[in-house]
Every structure is written in C-alpha cells, then in structure tokens.
C-alpha cells in the first residue's frame, strides 16, 4: 500500500515537470512558427521560460484578498487537473481519472481567475471575463456532446481505460468517429483561446482583458497556469481521440502535431466577435456533433 503511494507521488511530480517543460518549450517554438509565417525570425524557443521567470522576479501590486486568492485558486485548480491527464505510460491515477472530473476541475481555474480579475475593479477585466464565460458556453457544448458519444460507444468515461481500449483495438476514435474528431478539434481551438477565439484577451480592444491588472509574480503564475491548461486541454483531446500513446514519447509526439496544427491555423485567421464565435459554435459544430452522436448511439451502438 505504502509503495504505490510513493509511486503515485513520484509519477505525479514527473508528470508536472514534463507538462511544464514540454508545453512551455512548445509555446516558444509556436512563437517561432508564427514569426516564420510573418516572414521574421522570432525569439529563441526558450523565450517563454525567460518571460515566466523574469515576471516572477519582478515587484507587483495587489488589489486585496480576493485578487490573490483567485490566482491561487486558479493555479491550484489547474495543477490539480494536470494529475488526472494520463501521458502515455505516465498515468498518475489510472482508472479514476474521469473526464467529467477533469472538465469541471478545469472550471475551478476559470472561476478563480474570473473572481480575481473582476476583483481588480478594472472595467476591461470584467468585460473580458463576461466574454470568456459567454464564449465558454459556445465551444464547450459541441465538445461535451461528442465525448458523450465516445463514452457511450466504449462504455467508460475514464481516460486511462479509453486509452488502453484504443490501443488494444488498434483503431483510434478519430477514425471511428471522424466528424466527432473534427468537432472536438474546432472546439479545442476555442478552449485554448487561440486566435480566432481570443476575443476575451484582445490586447487592442480591452487592453488584454482579464490580465489588465496583473503585474510581476501574478503574471508569471498566470503564464504557468496557461501552460498547464494548454497541456490539459490538448492532452484530453489526444487521449480521447488519438489513442494517447503506449509510451510517453508517442503521446508527446501526437501532442506536438495537434498543437502545431492549431498554431498554424491561429496564426492566419483574424479574431471573431464574441457573438459571432458563439453563433459559429452553435451552428456547424453543434449540428455535426449531434449528427455524430446519433450515428454512434443508434447506428454503431455499444462496442
């Protein structure tokens, strides 16, 4: 009994370190890709590490208790969710890493940041948070309907079981449910808040939205939270639809491919308005997700 507690703790720490280092380097490379698309060189790929640690060394201001507590809640919730994402062979809680728990634990992070941003009393922040929550209603629905189909077909909603089923079956869910895979990919772009759907942190319109009053260490902590959130969301997609990977490296490779395709898409598309984004998500992705789920439930049936 004591041994597997030590193993879970060690694999938990390993997962955190892998998640942090891998995602932040990936974000650095993504900045280089975006620069190349704009025909310039872009910063070195370890630039994001420097930005994070520079912010942590700076002085900062605080707008009171809820401003601090919200950030701690955001980072704490997101770190807690990272433990529930199996990364290839590195699964910290095999069997009890339920997808609904992951999605709703991620909501703690959003709620914490929302409280702290509005607690700063800046109108830009409240407008940004209003947009973020409204947009969440847009991209979350198609994703949830599609994964409902996945759980119905495989009869389980635990991530590690889904991964082992897909590996054993040899067929990834993206081949079994191609429409579902496309819909999940599109709502993944919304989840990450990448270019077409980043109205809530629009620097030109609302002075980077919720981030307007964060300085120094708060900014560093939020950048760490953003890195972990990216790892969770893309890890969720890879595990659910691309079979997660037998070894850690296979998982990381799939993670990299998905991330760079999103970066390339987001580097070339201008920003949506919020109601356009919601209307977009409630039109095609939602209809396609219903089509997919009906196919799965009534045609394919259980595995």
């Amino acid at each position, binding site marked *: 009994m004591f041994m597997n507690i030590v193993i879970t703790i060690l694999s938990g720490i390993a997962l955190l370190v892998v998640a942090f280092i891998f995602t932040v380097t990936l974000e650095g490379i993504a900045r280089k890709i975006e*620069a190349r698309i704009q025909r310039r060189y*872009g910063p070195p790929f370890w*630039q994001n590490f420097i930005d994070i640690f520079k912010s942590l060394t700076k002085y900062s201001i605080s707008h009171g208790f809820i401003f601090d507590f919200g950030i701690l809640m955001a980072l704490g919730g997101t770190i807690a969710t990272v433990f529930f994402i199996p990364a290839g062979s590195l699964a910290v809680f095999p069997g009890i890493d339920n997808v609904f728990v992951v999605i709703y634990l991620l909501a703690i992070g959003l709620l914490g940041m929302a409280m702290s941003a509005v607690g700063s009393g800046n109108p830009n922040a409240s407008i940004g948070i209003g947009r973020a929550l409204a947009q969440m209603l847009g991209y979350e629905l198609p994703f949830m309907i599609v994964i409902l189909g996945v759980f119905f077909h495989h009869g389980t909603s635990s991530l590690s079981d889904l991964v082992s089923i897909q590996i054993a079956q040899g067929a990834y869910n993206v081949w079994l449910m191609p429409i579902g895979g496309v819909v999940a990919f599109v709502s993944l772009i919304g989840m990450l808040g990448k270019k077409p759907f980043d109205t809530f942190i629009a620097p030109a319109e609302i002075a*980077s939205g919720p981030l*307007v009053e964060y300085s120094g260490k708060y900014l560093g902590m939020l950048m760490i939270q953003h890195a972990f959130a990216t790892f969770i969301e893309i890890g969720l997609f890879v595990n659910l639809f691309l079979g997660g990977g037998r070894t850690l490296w296979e998982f990381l490779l799939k993670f990299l491919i998905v991330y760079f395709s999103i970066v390339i898409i987001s580097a070339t598309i201008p920003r949506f308005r919020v109601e356009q984004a919601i209307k977009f998500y409630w039109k095609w992705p939602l209809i396609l997700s219903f089509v997919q789920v009906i196919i799965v439930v009534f045609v394919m049936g259980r595995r």
Partner: protein
Amino acid sequence: MSNEHKAWERVANMLRSRSLWMLYYCTGCGAIELPPTMTSRFDMERLGIGPMATPRQADILLITGYLSTKTLRRVIYSYEQMQSPKYIVGFGSCTLNGGIYYDSYATINKLDLYVPVDLYLAGCMPRPEAIVSGFTALMSKIDKGEANGWKEYQEKNDWFKRNQIEALGEVYVHDEFHE
C-alpha cells in the same frame, strides 16, 4: 548584500535583459518608427522585446519625441503604475534638450528632470536600426546591472516630485471630461 543575494540578482538581471516588455504608449512623433522595428524587417521580438497593453505588465516606457506638459502628467501617472524594475528610453533630441521645440511654452526641455531616463537615442527621429542598437545597449546595461533608473526614482523621489511640481503646477488635474 550577501553573496547568495548577489548571485540571485545577477541571474535576475540576465533574465530581465532578455525579456523586455514595451508599453503601448506612443507619446510623440517617434512612435511611427516602432511598427517597422517590430515587424518582419527588423523583428524586435527576436531580442525578446514585445509590446504589452498595460503599464502593469510593461518594463520599458518609450518617450518617443516632444513631451508636452499634458502628456508628461499622463507619463508620470503611467510610470508610477508600472512595476519596478522599469526602464525609460528617450527617443530623439526633443527629450534630450527640447529639440526644435526648445522655445515652446508647452513642451519640456530636459526629460530626466522629471522621470529617470536609462537610455537616450539621438536622432530626430531615430530610425529602426538606431532603435535596435539602442535596445541592445540597454540590454547589456541591464545585464551589467547598471540600469537603475527605478532605484533613483525611489531614492531621490522628492527631488523628482519638486521638479514635476515646478514645471506642471500639479500632476493630478481635474478636467471636465472626468467629473
């Protein structure tokens, strides 16, 4: 300072020099030189310098050209909202000695009387090459730990405040648009 603290400070300076965030606040005519510096021709981002929307997140405040008394009040307010360590870069001769507006009733002639300036860029207005070389000079200055304008502002604060009151009468003004 204990040598452990000094070592930590050296690492921090190395980090600060390679990641400078510039505030989106174009106070004068030199601001038009910044887009070419940021975009693909001169690509300021490869030095780790990028634009930021709010003073809370920014490290550098660019005073790009002549500085009227009204703008100086807003510059002081934004500078105090920025978080130290923070640096100010003065563009062109108008911030050095008043430039062609030396005899105007509205513009100030010597910027570092009111806010501590870490780097001046000569030229009316400095072209992108001058700006990039200026930034690399600022980066090496930060790396060596000599860019301490923000410490000066804290230590000699009353001297700065006295100059500001002399030139502006009062910094926080009530105007008709904000009642």
